[in-house]
């Protein structure tokens, strides 16, 4: 059971090898990828920034909660920080269990809670050069959160 941040690219095949367990009948993984659009805008890249100490503490708490709520054998989550190009793996969650129901439910719980609670922030870089911190726009238009070029 673990949660950690990584400043370097993730290797899902290598990460998954740590979960090998002959008691497990199911392994569910979630990968979050940097996609090329968000709310109608063309995205070129992302920056992820974390409050590392509290992020790892809160992430570990979420993984422990998943273990309490669902009959899982192992659960791991790794989240990238730094500058990520399109297509890059931003977050990886994997859960093993005897049965698939618990593996699906725990995997979804971990990513849903991580997105809502772990102090990690995402800045999108748009075609044209503007940037925005996601979820941080303030009233009216997005002018406060989207920083125009120059």
């Amino acid at each position, binding site marked *: 059971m673990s949660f950690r941040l990584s400043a370097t690219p993730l290797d899902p095949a290598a990460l998954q090898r740590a979960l090998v367990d002959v008691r497990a009948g199911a392994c569910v993984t979630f990968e979050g990828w940097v996609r090329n659009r968000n709310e109608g805008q063309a995205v070129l890249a992302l920056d992820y920034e*974390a409050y590392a100490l509290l992020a790892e503490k809160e992430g570990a708490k979420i993984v422990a909660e998943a273990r309490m709520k669902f009959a899982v054998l192992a659960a791991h989550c790794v989240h990238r920080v730094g500058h990520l190009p399109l297509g890059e793996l931003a977050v990886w969650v994997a859960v093993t269990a005897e049965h698939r129901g618990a593996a699906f439910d725990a995997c979804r719980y971990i990513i849903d809670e991580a997105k809502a609670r772990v102090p990690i922030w995402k800045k999108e870089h748009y075609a044209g050069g503007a940037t925005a911190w996601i979820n941080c726009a303030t009233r009216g238009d997005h002018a406060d959160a989207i920083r125009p070029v120059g």
Partner: protein
Amino acid sequence: MISLTVHYFAILREQRGLTEEKLTTRATTPTALYDELRARHHLTLPADRVRAAVNDEFVAATATLRDGDRVVFIPPVAGG
């Protein structure tokens, strides 16, 4: 007056223009301190959209700040 260290991340770091500072304040709660900093540095997020952590633990907006605390204001998160 108490002495605190304040750390800034993400949009707050950019708007404040630094990652941490030491300061003295008459504020006794995270909310009061945030409102003071928001007015001084023209931070855009209102206090009700910012959470607080003290010494690397989430705290209530009305928690009591103590001399020497390390305070972090947490803008809306967006992992994943």
